[in-house]
């Protein structure tokens, strides 16, 4: 494809960084401030290097010196405020493009940066000898909001006694938040790191600790680290605190650090790390690349695991004692993930953002191998299925996930993912959820490659990459060699082809260069005469997130005579496949039936169709396509598959399928599986829930005691008194997990009145009553938490008399019992807290359910008190989840404000991220484009008002500039609430045509509506979007008709079937084509509406708005910089006098204005550029200049604001800088 074919790495910078010193002299925990300096050693690669662009955010820079000479510098960060000044536009399309432009403007991968240093002329006038430059920067950080996180508990004592600590964090390349650097994964250099900290503290950082020296007053000490392996700045980290130190007893070069008092937990939790080390070193046949490894466990961690060169920072909540069962595998997984990323991600870094998938893929893949080895093949296959289901679900819902986006320089208009409300061009513009799915898909694709070339070759490739990198890393100062440590998609594929000799091009094209998954529908018929299985496999490749698959597919058919694999070719037009059967349908009763794994079993064949030899059929059993399969086969076939197929994936698939067959036979099959101890425990757990569903569907014909009750009694209760559960011992973990799950599933049972059967409730209450953990060496906190969840599941809505106030007196007797238990549990937790406060977490969600079902008065105050800072993070998240739900159900604007307030100000970044994430998942109201019932629309909710729009806009525009993840969360929330276009709750912009519109609304209602609904849709696909806009301005709330649901961006139609159908199917959209089309659509749409309404006014607000802005822009042209979002096409670029730096390729977001006025912009810019040449010196006054405008804006009315919004977009920063430094 468009992948870079050239082998070497081309730096976007006119210099090469070889070494960097970071020295932090002082860390003040009281004031939360940091002072230090950096010194970068760089080799210019051009003759006259006159400016150096570096990355730096939120640092206060005191002085910059280049080779001992004071150097002038400019510090400008356009991402601080994405859209300058008050913009009344408020649409997400606009914001997204502006944000992408702002991020691009400082993107180190394009050679840009926030900090531009002018090299003193003495140095570059010297001539053509390319001398080493040393760039020395003094900086400080005061109360950093991002990059470094201070945890300072508010108690008595010294900082060390209080357990105060600080650590670096960030999403992707975020090192610029805490020291100036080239914040790119592709700029490697060696490091010297010095940290002076209080004598009671330890500073843990990357590389080898060379020495620790006291300061002269002996009150502080300096930690000297040296990192001789070339490393990218984003892989540098720091953690300082009064850590307890544990040297790994197996590997003395590995050191673990935890907060005071947690050492026993650390010892236990780290006792198996060496096994993971051994595993990776063995499969990769490569030593761990760094001389040492450090693990640091910190409180209020940003993510659970983050890996940096030779160290990893973990959440302290991963530590656990030997009594905890459930956390053990989770912690181990986290450690394995961290270690995998040490090899691929830290040691081997990526060449560009587009190559991220390779590193995430490889580290995820070898992590999977570890899972397979440690937890077994069943667990591994279960995990793969889980991951596959996740990515399929996400892509079908949100549209495709593209692993390797190509942004060809010339065609800026090419947006590879038009279905997303954010740009995938930068990691910092990605939604967190998308990035998680991206990682998931990456490792699944690696597994597909493994399927294709074998694991042996795969590991050889990894080994080759690692040995190349380690050879390169040992080279001193030959910086061109270091690029071998950068991995690109191209190099990876080449290595695969060299090692395996196989062409995996089609696979890469399908899954890496293209987004989306495959959706199969399968059904079959057995032709008795020909003894042939006629299989029909259809595909849906028109819906969002789907693509067409052409190629081989494996089908496994279990017949009476054995199991047979068939490889079918999925081709363009063939839907039907004839598969010859091996067995005759006459069955030999005595004979055992051979299975796939060679096992031979007796089966009761009475259930099957007498004419057919088929027991079951599986499509793509190895999951070698990223797909969703909906396969139709008879219920008895699913039952056979569940009982006899040994693959856990097949068993899980059949369990989900059996939900649709509530029969006695299904019940029996599930019960048998539940009882079978050899069966994988997660399958059995899934069977519990399926059984509950089946029992509910069969409620009128169900015989015997409630489902699972007698089973549970037999397995876990005393022989002599079946109503009493045995005292806990949890020696068999499989049984333990089953014991936890069964009550939860049982509580979902419902009787004919749709209530939880009295039997079941009493049973669960007895389980709680007789629970006895005194003789158990494991904690039962998770088990008790599940029992509370079971109580929660048993709740059904209260029979309510309308508007009745819930009081203690009218409390239902059963609910009273439940509430007693919950109260007691919650109170006991205060006296004897459980591990990770699991019980409080369950109780909070139980209380919310009681409220929601109308048993107790709905009230948010309890949750608010638990959500406060100072509670354990799990408890806070549980309380916040309840609050988010409360806010939605009660439509409480006070509580929404409370949540947003916390999302902005809470000290814990994770909690802030979580709040916005939960609000997105469970939004207080939804945008009108959602296919929801008409009455849940945006406009119906009182919450949706102008103030909220302003608040959220502010949050994503400037309130979250210190945390890229949080900003993207805010964007997601905005999208979830308002969609891509201007929120409909906003008042109409005060333009002339508003009045007309209002008039029109009255006219519109009865007569024109049907016309609008039918007419234009026929003609232009995009008109749905146009209508949306038109309608939304005319106060949609009074007309909840289906048409108004279609609000969408102008010229940015939703990925409707119609439009999809027009593009060539299955092939990647031609770059530029979409835009062209959209442009046409947009124009067509606009035209259409004008035509339809038969009036002169243009209801397309954006267009009007834009043209207004456009005029204004022309007027302001001489004063104002242009916007990067409207960067001229490449032809124009070549005319700029900036030869040293490649001009960033800004994506042309598909807003109509940008496409429409593209040409003119080029003109502006050009013009503008000349303008700047004349007034070079003016730039120092830039800030004043801006202020003036701002104050002016405040005075002026909205109309003016509107028009300015356009001209003041993100990029003032960029244009400010570029001309000033060009000569």
């Amino acid at each position, binding site marked *: 494809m468009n992948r870079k074919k050239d082998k070497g790495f081309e730096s976007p910078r006119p210099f090469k960084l070889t070494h960097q010193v970071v020295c932090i002299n002082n860390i003040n925990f009281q004031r939360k401030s940091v002072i230090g300096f950096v010194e970068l050693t760089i080799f210019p690669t051009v003759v006259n290097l006159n400016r150096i662009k570096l990355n730096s955010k939120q640092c206060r820079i005191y002085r910059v010196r280049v080779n001992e000479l004071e150097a002038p510098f400019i510090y400008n960060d356009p991402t601080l405020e994405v859209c300058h000044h008050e913009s009344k536009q408020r649409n997400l399309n606009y914001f997204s493009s502006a944000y992408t432009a702002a991020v691009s403007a400082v993107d180190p991968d394009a050679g840009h940066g926030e900090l531009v240093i002018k090299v003193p002329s003495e140095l570059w006038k010297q001539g053509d000898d390319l001398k080493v430059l040393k760039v020395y920067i003094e900086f400080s950080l005061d109360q950093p909001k991002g990059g470094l996180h201070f945890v300072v*508990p*508010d*108690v008595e004592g010294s900082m060390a006694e209080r357990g105060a600590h600080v650590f670096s964090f960030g999403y992707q390349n975020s090192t610029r938040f805490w020291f100036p650097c080239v914040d790119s994964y592709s700029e490697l250099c060696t490091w010297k790191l010095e940290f002076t900290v209080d004598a009671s503290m330890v500073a843990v950082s990357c590389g080898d*600790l*060379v*020495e*620790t*020296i*006291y*300061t002269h007053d002996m009150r502080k000490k300096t930690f000297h680290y040296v990192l001789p392996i070339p490393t990218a700045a984003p892989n540098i980290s720091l953690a300082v605190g009064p850590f307890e130190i544990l*040297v790994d007893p197996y590997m*003395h*070069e590995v*050191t673990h650090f935890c*907060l005071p008092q*947690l050492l026993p*937990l650390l010892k*236990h939790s780290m*006792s*198996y790390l060496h096994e993971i080390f051994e595993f990776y070193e063995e499969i990769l046949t490569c030593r761990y690349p760094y001389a*040492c490894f450090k693990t640091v466990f910190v*409180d209020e961690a940003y993510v659970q695991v983050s890996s940096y060169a030779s160290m990893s920072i973990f959440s*302290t909540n991963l*530590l656990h004692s030997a*009594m905890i*069962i459930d956390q053990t*595998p989770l912690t181990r997984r986290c450690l394995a993930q961290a270690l995998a990323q040490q090899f691929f991600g830290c040691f081997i870094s990526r060449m560009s953002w587009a190559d991220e998938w390779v590193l995430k893929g490889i580290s995820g893949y070898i992590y999977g191998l570890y899972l397979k080895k440690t937890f077994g093949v069943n667990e591994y296959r279960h995990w793969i299925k889980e991951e596959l289901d996740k990515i399929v679900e996400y892509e079908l819902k949100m549209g495709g996930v593209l692993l390797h986006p190509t942004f060809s320089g010339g065609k800026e208009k090419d947006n590879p993912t038009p279905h997303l409300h954010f740009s995938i061009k930068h990691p910092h513009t990605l939604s967190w959820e998308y990035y998680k799915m991206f990682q998931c898909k990456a490792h699944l694709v690696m597994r597909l490659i493994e399927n294709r070339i074998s694991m042996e070759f795969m590991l050889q490739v990894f080994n080759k990459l690692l040995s190349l990198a380690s050879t390169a890393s040992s080279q001193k100062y030959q910086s061109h060699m270091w690029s071998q440590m950068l991995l690109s998609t191209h190099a990876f594929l080449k290595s695969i082809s060299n090692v395996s000799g196989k062409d995996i091009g089609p696979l890469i094209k399908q899954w890496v260069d293209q987004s989306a998954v495959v959706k199969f529908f399968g059904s079959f018929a057995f032709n008795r005469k020909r003894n042939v299985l006629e299989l029909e496999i259809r595909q849906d490749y028109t819906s969002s997130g789907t693509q067409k698959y052409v190629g081989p597919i494996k089908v496994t058919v279990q017949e009476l005579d054995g199991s047979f694999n068939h490889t079918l070719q999925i081709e363009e037009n063939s839907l039907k496949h004839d598969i010859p059967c091996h067995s005759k349908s006459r069955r030999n009763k005595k004979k055992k039936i051979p299975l796939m794994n060679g096992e031979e079993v007796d089966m009761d064949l009475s259930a099957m169709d007498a004419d057919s030899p088929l027991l079951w059929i599986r499509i793509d059993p190895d999951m070698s396509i990223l797909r969703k399969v909906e396969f139709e086969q008879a219920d008895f076939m699913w039952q056979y598959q569940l009982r006899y197929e040994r693959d856990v994936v097949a068993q899980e698939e059949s369990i989900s399928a059996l939900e649709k067959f509530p029969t006695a036979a299904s019940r029996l099959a599930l019960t048998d599986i539940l009882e079978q101890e050899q069966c994988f425990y997660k399958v059995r757990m899934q069977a519990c829930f399926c059984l509950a569903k089946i029992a509910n569907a069969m409620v009128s014909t169900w015989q015997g005691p409630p489902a699972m009750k007698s089973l549970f009694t037999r397995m876990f209760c*005393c022989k*002599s*008194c079946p109503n009493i559960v045995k005292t806990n011992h949890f020696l*068999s973990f499989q049984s333990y997990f089953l014991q936890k799950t069964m009550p939860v599933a049982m509580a979902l049972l419902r009787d004919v009145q749709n209530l939880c059967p009295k039997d079941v409730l009493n049973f669960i209450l007895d389980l709680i009553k007789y629970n006895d*953990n*005194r*003789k*158990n*060496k494991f904690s039962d906190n998770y088990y008790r938490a599940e029992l509370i969840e079971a109580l929660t599941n048993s709740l059904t809505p209260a029979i309510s008399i309308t508007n009745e106030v819930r*009081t*203690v007196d009218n409390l239902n007797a059963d609910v009273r019992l439940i*509430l007693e238990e919950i*109260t*007691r549990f*919650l*109170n006991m937790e*205060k*006296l*004897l*807290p459980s*591990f*990770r406060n699991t019980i409080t977490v369950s109780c909070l969600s139980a209380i919310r359910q009681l409220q929601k079902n109308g048993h*107790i*008065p709905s*009230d948010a*105050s*309890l949750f608010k*008190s*638990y959500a406060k*800072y*100072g*509670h354990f*993070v799990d408890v806070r998240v549980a309380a916040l989840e309840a609050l988010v739900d409360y806010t939605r159900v009660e439509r409480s604007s006070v509580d929404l404000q409370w949540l947003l307030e916390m999302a902005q100000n809470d000290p814990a970044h994770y909690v802030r991220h979580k709040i916005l994430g939960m609000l997105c998942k469970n939004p207080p109201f939804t945008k009108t484009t959602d296919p929801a019932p008409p009455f849940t629309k945006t406009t119906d909710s009182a919450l949706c008002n102008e103030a909220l729009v302003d608040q959220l806009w502010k949050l994503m525009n400037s309130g979250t500039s210190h945390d890229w993840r949080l900003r993207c969360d805010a964007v997601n929330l905005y999208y979830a609430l308002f969609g891509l276009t201007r929120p409909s709750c906003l008042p109409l912009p005060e333009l002339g045509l508003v009045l007309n519109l209002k008039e029109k609304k009255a006219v519109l209602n009865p007569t024109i509506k049907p016309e609008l609904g039918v007419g234009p849709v026929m003609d232009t696909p995009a008109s749905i979007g146009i209508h949306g806009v038109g309608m939304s301005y005319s106060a949609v709330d009074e007309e909840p008709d289906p048409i108004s649901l279609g609000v969408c961006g102008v010229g940015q139609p939703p990925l409707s079937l119609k439009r999809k159908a027009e593009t060539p199917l299955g092939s990647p959209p031609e770059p530029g084509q979409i835009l062209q089309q959209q442009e046409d659509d947009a124009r067509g749409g606009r035209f259409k509406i004008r035509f339809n309404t038969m009036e002169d006014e243009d209801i397309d607000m954006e267009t009007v708005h834009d043209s207004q802005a456009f005029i204004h822009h022309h007027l302001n042209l001489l004063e104002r910089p242009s916007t990067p979002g409207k960067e001229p096409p490449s032809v124009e670029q070549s005319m700029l006098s900036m030869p040293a730096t490649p001009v960033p390729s800004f994506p042309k977001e598909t807003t109509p204005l940008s496409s429409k006025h593209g040409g003119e912009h080029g003109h502006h810019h050009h013009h503008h550029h000349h303008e700047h040449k004349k007034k070079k010196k003016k730039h120092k006054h830039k800030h004043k200049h801006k202020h003036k405008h701002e104050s002016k804006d405040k005075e002026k009315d909205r109309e003016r604001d509107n028009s300015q919004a356009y001209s003041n977009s993100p990029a003032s920063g960029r244009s400010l800088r570029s001309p000033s430094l060009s000569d």
Partner: protein
Amino acid sequence: PASYALANGHGGKAATSPAENYHLARRRTLQVVVSALLTECGFDSAEKAAVETLTEMMQSYITEIGRCAKAYCEHTARSIPTLSDAVVTLIEMGFKADTLPLYAKRSQRMVITAPPVTNPPVTPKALSAGQKRTHPAHIPCHFPEFPDPHTYIKTPTFREPVSDYQVVREKAASQRRDVERALTRFMAKTGETESLFKDDITAFPLIAAQPSTIPYLSALLPSELELQTLEETDSSEQDDQTDGENAVGNMISDDPGADKENAMLPLSAVVPAAKASEDNVIDNPYLRPVKKPKVRRKK
């Protein structure tokens, strides 16, 4: 004289104690006895000093008899002297014991009234339980009586423990629940609470959530109760294991079931002894001593 001195010293030491009265009374009685004997022998009067001396002699004689009889008694491993002990003592002291009955029945003897006993140190009789047992046939009746029955009679005061499993579990469960409920109610009553109901804030009181400064500590560290349980189960399990091993011997070298479980989730890895001994010589940069600043570093 020695015993006199002893007695005297003893009395002197206990001068303020209630026993002093007793000693004085005893001595007065002895004086009366000496005086009576003198009268019997025909003396009309005696000097005080002579009476004192005689009293002293009498006392030491009696004391010696007592001491000696005690010694004989203890020599035969008894605690209370018997008649025969006294007889042997008298003989030992050169007294013709067989003359004693005659002397006791002499006609001219004077009868002395019993000394008024003031506050004899009475040990209050402990609770009497049951009938005092009489001596069995083989024990002479002059032997000391049995002590009070309560000192040796065993009366079971507990009921037969309920061995019915169901009842035991039931009791344990309800007892624990009652304790928990009482405790939480108490805590709720004495501290701040939150309520689920607006109309009756005392129903289902919830102890108010108090933010803590370092919340992860209580959430991650096992409570003391749990640790205690762990210790108990650990030791008991170890016992079980060693017992089991001893019983089975080395016949079963590996248990496949246990292995499987360990492979799935080895929860506790044991550091091999060899490794542990190496720990002493670990060279880890974080364990090295912090260096003193070099002078030349000063600017």
